[in-house]
């Protein structure tokens, strides 16, 4: 599997908030072990989806210069299971930004039902060129937001 937990970025406001989605499908590898005979989206994979969305928001807010990695987690509550066939909507809201990183809150919804609440977490900035090809990351971001196609079709 590829470790990409955001399927689409639906909307975003630089330095403020972003909404993204991730479809949960029965063919995900991790559902085989989590749990046998009872497939549910692992809580930490929801957290990873939130972190990746927040990281994309850091990326666009920093004019494509840095991403973010998780440095601290205040509290995350898992209220209800997310099951295969459901679509998770992740909403990330930045609370404060400084030179080191960003503090944010988030929630995961399925339809109108709030499934998971993250009350506060902190991402540490990481310069994009140390982890990914900057141009490729930027192209992929535009693909996620639907601004332009990706890869061989991007002309």
């Amino acid at each position: 599997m590829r470790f990409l937990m955001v399927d689409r970025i639906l909307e975003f406001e630089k330095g403020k908030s972003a909404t993204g989605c991730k479809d949960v499908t029965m063919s995900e590898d991790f559902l085989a072990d989590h749990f046998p005979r009872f497939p549910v989206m692992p809580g930490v994979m929801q957290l990873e989806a939130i972190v990746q969305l927040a990281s994309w928001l850091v990326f666009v807010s920093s004019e494509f210069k840095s991403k973010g990695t998780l440095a601290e987690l205040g509290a995350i509550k898992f209220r209800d299971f997310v099951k295969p066939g459901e679509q998770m909507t992740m909403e990330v809201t930045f609370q404060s930004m400084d030179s080191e990183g960003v503090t944010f809150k988030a929630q995961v919804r399925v339809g109108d039902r709030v499934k998971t609440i993250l009350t506060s977490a902190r991402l540490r900035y990481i310069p994009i060129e140390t982890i990914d090809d900057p141009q490729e990351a930027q192209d992929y971001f535009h693909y996620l937001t639907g601004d332009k196609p990706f890869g061989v079709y991007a002309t």
Partner: protein
Amino acid sequence: MRFHLFDKVIRFVPGKSGVGVKNVTLGEDFFNRHYGLTPLMPEPLIIEAMAQMGGWTIALSTGWQYVAILLRIDKVKFYRPVRPGDQLILKADVLSINESGSLIEGRAEVNGEVVAHAERIMYGNSPVPDHLRAFIKKSYIYVSGGFLDREGNVITR
């Protein structure tokens, strides 16, 4: 990817603590695109590793009466990145276990240095139905990495 975030158990004190090992290798699926130029272990999976070690400790401490389901995670700090080649030592200390839920404090170390610390991981304890107990027991023995024998007893070396 398979969702087993520890390879074997190395110590277990019933009702008190469990210690496990997770070898981090470049062949892991999660290193695919995380990231393109530098492989770094995703922090949420370090939490999952600590949480799985805690869940295993709870299930064995209660004699497979309960399986632990993750409800809440509080106050986690990550001190340094984890890379392929690192051996994570996962320490789960039991803060409380009762019939409704359990609390665990988790630590992940590499070479004696703490890389992640979770103050509280809270689980709901879900009773295991009788018809599933043998199946659950088998899977917990499987993930122990040779720490338990086929009957679920600790193998003394």
